[in-house]
């Protein structure tokens, strides 16, 4: 099956400022694909080019087999979009917005059902201005889905939401995928990307610096695991002989073993062999955040300079 979205060597500059240097990736049918990167990395420019809202300076783009440059209008009728920095008139009511946007597509979804599904049923007559951040977000998602799209682009949908509203938004994204809709998710939140994305591309300074599934990226870029336990045994240096172990640090009774590969199982076996059976043996692995910081750390250093 051909990719739902394919990007090859996308390049885009705003005057002398290069926003996207050279970006390539492909999104498969039915997955949640993340574009993860620090602010200003070029993520929004990429999705705007994909929707034909901006003209790419170079590269080949295809969304649902259409070229966003020349078939933008047709394309925007078939994809859903939740944009950063967009709004509705203050005094428009929820039902009016849904009804208006539904009228754009022949065979659009029943907006009354969408209103129900996205928890806006009691808010039909509420004005846009009176909605909370989370409610607006849900309205935008409902508007993005009203044309029964095959792909939706969600750009920073949880920015500005409180933690509870973010959780709800995550459930919404999973619910969209459950309908069979492919999702392209733009975010700078690591936890969000790790929790939601099947695959993702880490974008920094207009380039894809890493791509893969969240666990795959962690294995590749931050393979180290930490095994922690406490013991009264005086000497733990034997653990250095366990394959994969790189460092053993001891602070009072608590011991921290750093290493790669299946260190938890091997360390556990070595301890048991010595008659040490700690009750609190546990392993921690790196999160996407560490991968991200490792891949994009040059930037933070520069900003401080």
């Amino acid at each position: 099956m051909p990719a739902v979205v394919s990007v090859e060597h996308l390049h885009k500059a705003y005057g002398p400022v290069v926003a996207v240097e050279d970006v390539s990736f492909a999104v498969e049918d039915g997955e949640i694909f993340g574009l993860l990167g620090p602010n200003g990395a070029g993520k929004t420019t990429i999705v705007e080019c994909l929707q034909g809202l901006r003209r790419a300076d170079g590269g080949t783009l295809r969304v649902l087999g259409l070229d966003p440059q020349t078939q933008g209008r047709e394309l925007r009728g078939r994809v859903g979009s939740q944009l950063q920095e967009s709004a509705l008139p203050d005094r428009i009511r929820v039902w009016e917005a849904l009804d208006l946007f539904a009228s754009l597509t022949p065979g659009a979804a029943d907006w009354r059902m969408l209103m129900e599904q996205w928890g806006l049923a009691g808010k039909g007559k509420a004005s846009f201005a009176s909605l909370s951040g989370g409610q607006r977000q849900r309205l935008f998602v409902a508007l993005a889905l009203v044309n029964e799209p095959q792909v939706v682009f969600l750009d920073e949908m949880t920015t500005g939401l409180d933690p509870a509203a973010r959780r709800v938004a995550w459930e919404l994204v999973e619910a969209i995928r459950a309908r069979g809709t492919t999702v392209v998710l733009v975010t700078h939140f690591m936890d969000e990307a790790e929790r939601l994305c099947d695959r993702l591309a880490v974008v920094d300074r207009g380039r894809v610096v890493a791509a893969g599934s969240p666990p795959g990226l962690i294995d590749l870029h931050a393979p180290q695991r930490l095994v922690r336990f406490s013991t009264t045994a005086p000497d733990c240096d034997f653990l250095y002989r366990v394959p994969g172990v790189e460092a053993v640090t001891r602070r009072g009774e608590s011991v921290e073993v750093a290493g790669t590969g299946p260190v938890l199982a091997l360390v556990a076996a070595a301890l048991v062999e010595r008659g040490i059976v700690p009750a609190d043996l546990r392993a921690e692995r790196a999160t996407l955040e560490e991968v991200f910081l490792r891949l994009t750390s040059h930037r933070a250093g520069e900003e401080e300079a």
Partner: protein
Amino acid sequence: MTTLRKMVAVELKLFLREPLTVVFALALPLITLFVLGGVFGNTPEAGFYAGVGAMDFYTPAYIGLVLASIGVISIPAHLAGNRERGVLRRFRASSVPAAVVVGSEVAVSLLIALVSGVVLVACALVMYGAAPPQSAWLLMPAFLLSGLVFATLGAMLGTLLPTARAAQAAGMLLWFVMLFLGGAGPPPEVLTGALGWLRHGVPLTYSVGVLQGPWLGTGWNWADAGILAAIGLAAALVTALRFRWE
């Protein structure tokens, strides 16, 4: 077409939900009548007002003034404001055609203008004893043409000016210049020298010419109608070429 109809309905409701704009649209023609009508009275004066009573002369001019206010003050601020706030961005992402965005603005302002116009004419006839139009049939196309041209001019200003504030300021400025030079304020006879020349540069002059013809019974003013239509077409062209979503 369905979308345009719904957009017009929504825009009309949005207009009615904004109490200040409603008051402005209804009060402006009345204030104009009250103040200017009070100043000029309705007695024919030799050498002024083309030989008719001031109120007879001015009522069609005030219609032009009201059409201009809705076109060049309300539309630019609304359009530029929607762009500034990201409303147009939202519309574009859902592939709302630009023609629907601009078309609904024009249609709504024509509807508002119609109500304002009726209020104005009724008050002029009843309260100030102005003479009714000689040809109501010719007045309609004159009204429609003027309304369309001012709405298109407003759309052009809203397209060219970057922010709601800038658009509003420019619209206000244009409206005041037109008020003084376009034949709805000081009678054209007192605008001599440079002012006499300048008055040929403001669209209201031609709108007033087109509206006064049927009202005073001098017939359809082809010359002014032609110039007015050319202004409208030019503004429509600029709007179409320069329309920006963000």
